[in-house]
Structures are given as structure tokens and as C-alpha cells.
């Protein structure tokens, strides 16, 4: 795959979702994830539904249309539940989806809400049996006396049907709200993390899970930090990381002990005292952590920046990218309108040369690591003509606003891009606005 050069351009490919501005809450997209080949793209929403898109391979001969994604399967993953003991409603919103690597004809994914993780099997059916001995075609039973001969039913082609069925339900293991799930490279286990604990599951076993990290203090009044995200190393099945609300990341080795409360490595950058404010703690809280595909680096996202860490260096990140530094002077307003609590995710491209994350006003940012170039692009219906090239956007932090720049005060903070995903092999990205999914591809000359 060609790395994105300095003259890389992105074009609009598709947009999925309702057009009208009145957003139904259930349609708010809450997670986006490509599978391991990139052929399938799954989204989860606040209404508990999962929609899977499939890349149309037939058009691969026409390079400009190579990334057409069409709906493959839609199903209701989670329903709202009620915890009677605590008098609490459990939201059906899908917090995360993670695909399992494909082992056979069927596809498997894990989807989770605040309390329950489910393993879904998505399988295709394009044949059906015909010619039963005891039943008519419509299912009615034949009169046994009328049967004179024995025949073998045959499979005849039918219209493709994609079925999703829940194969496992992993429940009752989390007191707090689940924020992450991550499949181990061993393909047998996975972790689920809530605010205070991380559990290890076997994909086959639903009635038991092992607690491997527990940061709950004996006295809750002493609570100072919570777990915000966790992920398994892509290659080393014994290694996992988890990030905290204090801006630290802990790397744990499961071989050291059964309970990984003692970390192997602690990644923390000392705070810049000149940036201290009321809201320093909130903005240093890490909202996402992702290993690079090659497993040598990890990336963290806090409110204002993206940081790339070398796993061998704990005292500071190797790269820091400012996503929207112009918001630093607006933190008080962002606190009042709750935007300061927004949890942005981040992602790597296939060869770990570019990182991407979202921002406000439906802007999203890409940072090219080696060339230190960055670009701001916008996902909007206005720029959604087929193959229209996206024009880089610029925010004017202060002073004189140039033409085509947008001033900080004009930014729409209701239009936020929290979830983005990058195809594992090609330059195709999926960007979720509130209720729409945009698919962009690099410009093919």
C-alpha cells in the first residue's frame, strides 16, 4: 500500500444514514470498526443496533469505485435492561465492537454495552434444502400413506440471506460501565474493562471470567483515578495496556502474576506547569489507547492532543500532535456545555505511518508521522459529490481571519467526530458524524 505522500488527497466516496437534521437519539453512531481484511465495516449505535457494510469486490476492476460499501447485515445487538437491585436502567448503546479474525466461512464479532458482551455469528445462507420426504414445500406434514418412494433432499440456490445469531452472552461480570473490549492475539481469550476492573474471558466460556486488574480502593472515598481504555498487544498474547483518567498508561504482563495490579511499565509525561488550570485533570484524561499494527508503539488520545509512545520509553511520548490547541482558552465554556467530557477515539493507518482522530465542526485530523505534516478535513453533506476531493480546512485561532478559514467561535460543537476507522490495508477511512457514516478514499490518479 502506498504511504500517504505530501500530496495525498482524499475524496468523498459514500455517506450512510439519514439526511435530515433532526437526529433521532437511537441513530447516534457510537462505534465504528473494520474487520481484519477491511472487507466488512461494522457500526454500533445508541439504539443497540449493529449495521455491517460489505465492500463490493466486483468493482475492484474499476479503481475509482473500489470502496463501495453496502449494507450486509443489520441486527439488534442489545436491548435496554433494568437492574432491579440498583434501580438503574442499563443503556442499550453499543460502546465497542471488535471483530474476531476469520476462521471459517462465518464472521464473528464481539459487541458490548455498559454491562454485557455478546459474541455474534454472522453467516451467509445462499442455498436451501428442497425435497423432504415427510414435509411439503410449505412445511405441512404429508400423509405418511401417500409416500411411496424415498429421496434425498437437494440444496438449491436461493437469494443470499445474511443471518446474525448471538452465540455467547457474557454478563454479570462488571459492576461499573464497560468502556473497552479487546481480543487477544491467541484468538481464544479477550478482555473487557470497566472503570475499575479488567476481566479476562475465554470466548467459549460465559459463566466464568478472571479478574486481572482491580484498581478499586478499599475505601471508595480514596478514589483518584479510573480505567478509561484497555487493549491487548497485537502480537504478544501476554501483554496488555490500560489508560487512566489521570493521563497515565500501564503496561501489564500476565505472566508475572494472576492479578496484574502491579504494572510492568508506567507511561507518564510530567505535566507542563504553565498549562495548569481548573480543568487540567479533565483534559489529561485519556479517552482512547491503540497499539500500532506492528506492536512497537501505542497511541493515546486526550482532550487536546494525540501522543505516540514507544513501548520502550516510559517517561515521555515520542510524538505529540495537537488536535485543536485553540480550544485551550475555551475550556471553561467547553466545561459548561459538557463538551470537555467528550471521548475522542484515534486510529492508525495500515502501515502505522499516519494517525487520525476527530474534532468538532465535523472536522477530523490526520497526522503524518515521518514528514510531520497534518491536515484537517471536514465530513459534510456539502462536500459529498461522488469523488469530490476534500479541501483542507483551517481554524483561525485569533487575530485576522483569512479567507476560507473558520474562526473558533463559529465552530459547531454539536457536530463532533468521536469515532473514526482506517481500513487495515487500503487508504479507505470511515468517519462517523453524529448519525452519519462517511467513507472517504484516497484519490486515485
Amino acid at each position, binding site marked *: 500500500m502506498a504511504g500517504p505522500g505530501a500530496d495525498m488527497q482524499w475524496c468523498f466516496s459514500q455517506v450512510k444514514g439519514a439526511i435530515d437534521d433532526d437526529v433521532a437519539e437511537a441513530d447516534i453512531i457510537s462505534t465504528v470498526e473494520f474487520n481484519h481484511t477491511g472487507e466488512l465495516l461494522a457500526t454500533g449505535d445508541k439504539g443497540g443496533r449493529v449495521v455491517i457494510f460489505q465492500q463490493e469486490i466486483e468493482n475492484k476492476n474499476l479503481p475509482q469505485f473500489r470502496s463501495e460499501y453496502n449494507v450486509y447485515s443489520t441486527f439488534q445487538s442489545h436491548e435496554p435492561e433494568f437492574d432491579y437491585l440498583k434501580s438503574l436502567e442499563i443503556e442499550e448503546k453499543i460502546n465497542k465492537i471488535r471483530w474476531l479474525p476469520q476462521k471459517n466461512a462465518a464472521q464473528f464479532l464481539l459487541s458490548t454495552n455498559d454491562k454485557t458482551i455478546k459474541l455474534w455469528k454472522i453467516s451467509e445462507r445462499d442455498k436451501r434444502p428442497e425435497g423432504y420426504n415427510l414435509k411439503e414445500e410449505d412445511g405441512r406434514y404429508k400423509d405418511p400413506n401417500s409416500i411411496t418412494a424415498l429421496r434425498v433432499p437437494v440444496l438449491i440456490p436461493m437469494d443470499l440471506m445474511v443471518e446474525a445469531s448471538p452465540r455467547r452472552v457474557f454478563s454479570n461480570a462488571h459492576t461499573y460501565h464497560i468502556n473497552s473490549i479487546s481480543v487477544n492475539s491467541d484468538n481464544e481469550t479477550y478482555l473487557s474493562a470497566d472503570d475499575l476492573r479488567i476481566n479476562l474471558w475465554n470466548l467459549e466460556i460465559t459463566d466464568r471470567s478472571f479478574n486481572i486488574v482491580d484498581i478499586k480502593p478499599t475505601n471508595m472515598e480514596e478514589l483518584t483515578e479510573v480505567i478509561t481504555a484497555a487493549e491487548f498487544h497485537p502480537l504478544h498474547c501476554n501483554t496488555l495496556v490500560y489508560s487512566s483518567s489521570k493521563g497515565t498508561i500501564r503496561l501489564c504482563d500476565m505472566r508475572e502474576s494472576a492479578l496484574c495490579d502491579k504494572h510492568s511499565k508506567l507511561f507518564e509525561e510530567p505535566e507542563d506547569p504553565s498549562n495548569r488550570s*481548573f480543568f487540567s485533570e479533565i483534559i489529561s484524561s485519556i479517552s482512547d489507547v491503540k497499539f500500532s499494527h506492528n506492536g512497537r508503539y501505542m497511541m493515546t488520545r486526550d482532550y487536546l492532543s494525540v501522543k505516540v509512545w514507544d513501548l520502550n520509553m516510559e517517561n515521555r511520548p515520542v510524538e505529540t500532535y495537537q488536535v485543536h490547541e485553540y480550544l485551550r482558552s475555551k475550556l471553561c465554556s467547553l466545561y459548561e456545555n459538557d463538551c470537555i467530557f467528550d471521548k475522542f477515539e484515534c486510529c492508525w493507518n495500515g502501515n502505522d505511518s499516519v494517525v487520525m482522530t476527530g474534532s468538532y465542526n465535523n472536522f477530523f485530523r490526520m497526522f503524518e508521522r515521518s514528514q510531520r505534516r497534518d491536515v484537517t478535513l471536514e465530513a459534510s453533506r456539502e462536500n459529498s459529490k461522488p469523488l469530490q476531493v476534500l479541501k483542507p480546512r483551517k481554524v483561525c485561532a485569533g487575530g485576522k481571519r483569512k479567507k476560507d478559514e473558520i474562526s473558533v467561535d463559529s465552530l459547531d460543537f454539536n457536530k463532533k467526530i468521536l469515532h473514526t476507522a482506517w481500513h487495515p490495508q487500503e487508504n479507505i477511512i470511515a468517519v462517523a458524524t453524529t448519525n452519519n457514516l462517511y467513507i472517504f478514499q484516497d484519490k486515485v490518479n
Partner: protein
Amino acid sequence: MSTAADMDVNMDVNMEARRILAVSISKLYASRAQRGGLRLHRSLLLSLVMRSARDIYHSSSRDSEPHSGPSPPEEPMDTTSSVEPERTVSEPQPTSPSAQAATEEPEAEYERGASGDKENLSPAKQSRKRRGKTSAAPDFLPSKRARLEPGEERYAACCRSGHPESLTSLSLNRVISAF
């Protein structure tokens, strides 16, 4: 020595801190009605902001008053203030350590009293009467008394007494422990 200009800046800082406190409290109340229940992470972040605002509020209040006498020990009284010595907020007015410590003690006594005797707080402390001297008492609080958890009862009682100082001096982590 405080000049008139210093006093003005102090007032601004004071007002800002109170405003942030007010916003934070209303967020805390609103989060109780949220679908899916109280979010631990969000509540923790809110309590951290409130603590910062409280510290600034107290230090800026104290700075406008002359202080005398030997500096009392800075030893924090409750577990929550273990992070406070690290909290140096970049404000125009540098906070004097002794002034801050002086704030700690009366607060700590209140907290000790509260933690020592959860069931039988004296009616005076739980008084819901607005005190005249704090005329800028929070108006943002809901007037209807909602059903609360034990930790939150005391929290709300403080709010209604119209005493911002006592409000914030109540251990913010009571909110968390209400989980």
C-alpha cells in the same frame, strides 16, 4: 500586602471559582437523572474540578483578609486532600501556604465531625435556612427535595444551608462513595 488592584483580581478569581462550583453542582445533580445511572468517571472528574474551584475560592477569599499568627501545620486531615499540596493553579495571586493551611483546619474539623457521626449530625449543621450574610448563596439548586443516597443527603443539606464554604468542605468524595 494586597493592593486595590490585587483585591479586584481576587474578586474575579473568586467569582470564577464560585461560578465553576455552581456549574459543577448542577451537573452533578443532572447526572443523577441520566439514563444508565451515575457514571463513575464523569463524577470523578466533576469532583476534581470542584476541588480545584474550592481551593481557589478559599485561597482567594483568605488572601483578601490579613492573616496573622504562626502557620499551622499543613498536614491534611482527610485522605482527599492528599493531592492538594500538588495543586498549584496558575493564578495571578500566588496563594500563601499558611493561608491555605489555615483553611484546611476548620474544614477538616467539619469533616471529622461529619465522618465521625454520620447518623446524628446536629440540626444546626443540617439547617436549611439561608444565612443572611452569604447573600450570594447558590440559587441554582433545585427547590424540590429529591430522594437521595445517604452520602448525597449531607451534600444537599450543605447546599441548602446557603453556605458555599461548608458545601465544598464536605468531602467531595462522599459523592463518589455514594456509588
